[in-house]
């Protein structure tokens, strides 16, 4: 058992970047982000027996993590205890607007991208997050549970919207 736990924690360390991205996409408040990360780790551990080695580990991990993140986001916004995404988005927006010392254009765009992603509905947010994580349409379809064509169409629309908004904000 200790070995199993050690292996699991090592696996989490290897995959903490996607978990970090998911947490960032679904909550911007640091405390909530940490809460969500812990919840994801715990649920991954609990669901570990459902992993079928015949499939890609990342598909299974994203399914669990995104399900936990969406449920977490929905339950917290419902009870209103979490700083809402809009509030967070405003924080970021203000920071971007006021922060004249922002020398790093890329960092500014990153903040903007996060803000724009934060404005998407939770299911669209999942699609663009998986796309930006360079997942294939096939894998995204498996994670989301919709057809590949549907994934492609929706991602195209979201991308266009994001590009337009980024271009508009930068001009």
């Amino acid at each position: 058992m200790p070995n199993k736990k050690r292996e699991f924690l090592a696996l989490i360390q290897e995959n903490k970047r996607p978990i970090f991205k998911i947490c960032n996409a679904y909550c911007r408040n640091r405390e909530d982000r940490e809460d969500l990360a812990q919840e994801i780790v715990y649920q991954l551990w609990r669901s570990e027996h459902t992993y079928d080695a015949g499939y890609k580990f990342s598909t299974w991990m994203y399914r669990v993590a995104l399900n936990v993140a969406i449920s977490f986001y929905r339950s917290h916004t419902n009870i209103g205890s979490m700083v809402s995404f809009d509030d967070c988005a405003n924080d970021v927006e203000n920071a971007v607007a006021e922060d004249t010392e922002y020398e790093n254009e890329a960092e500014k765009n990153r903040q903007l991208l996060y803000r724009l992603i934060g404005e998407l509905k939770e299911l669209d947010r999942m699609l663009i997050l998986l796309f930006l994580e360079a997942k294939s349409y096939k894998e995204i379809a498996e994670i989301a549970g919709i057809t590949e064509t549907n994934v492609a169409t929706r991602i195209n629309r979201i991308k266009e919207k994001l590009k337009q908004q980024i271009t508009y904000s930068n001009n």
Partner: protein
Amino acid sequence: MQDDYLMKIWQVNDSQADHFLEIDEPAFEKLQHEKAKSQLHKLIVPKLTGILLGLGWIAFMILLISLSLRYSPVSSGKIFFIGSLGVIAVTTAVAVFLYVRDLYTIRQIGNDDSVVAIQHKLAELQCSVIRSVRIMWLQLPFYTTWYLNYDMLLHGSLLFRIVQFLVTGGAVWLSVWLFRNIRYENRHKKRVWGFMRGYGFSSVSRAMEFMDEIEHFKAQPEDVKR
């Protein structure tokens, strides 16, 4: 702007991830302990509360019926009393059974199925409370009949009989109307959901909206382009 550009922006400042989620074994043990304690998910707590309250109410009805049978003489009034309380107990039992079934379903849901499937199941479970609510409303008229007896109905004053008829008739109308209208298919009817929201069912309403969103999300957009 190319897709690569969006991806590049997305990758910026990933170094923050290095300091994220640093969990060693003792910290993980602690996390497991804390999470196991808080396993009573938000979906479970309201249903468990409903089950406990329902069982308490059923026990109270049974107690009243048995006390009535044991200590008071047999009379025509007992038919109304026992009948009304009996119906209330039975409808409450049906609602409790539905809650217990939901709890069983919640335990069966993992997180490893596709996001759309799991989120749909969860939203559906959140909405399932309306099934129990519909059934509970059916008992409303019986709260207006438990104290009656034949004597009151046959020989009571005209005013009493008119008022009783209006009250019970109104309760029957309201309970049937709510039973027929409180359902997922009527989620867009303002009259029904305005009423439900007033009784603290806004989270159910939000779950229904999310179910609509999921249905829309699953549907193939018309202008497919790859």
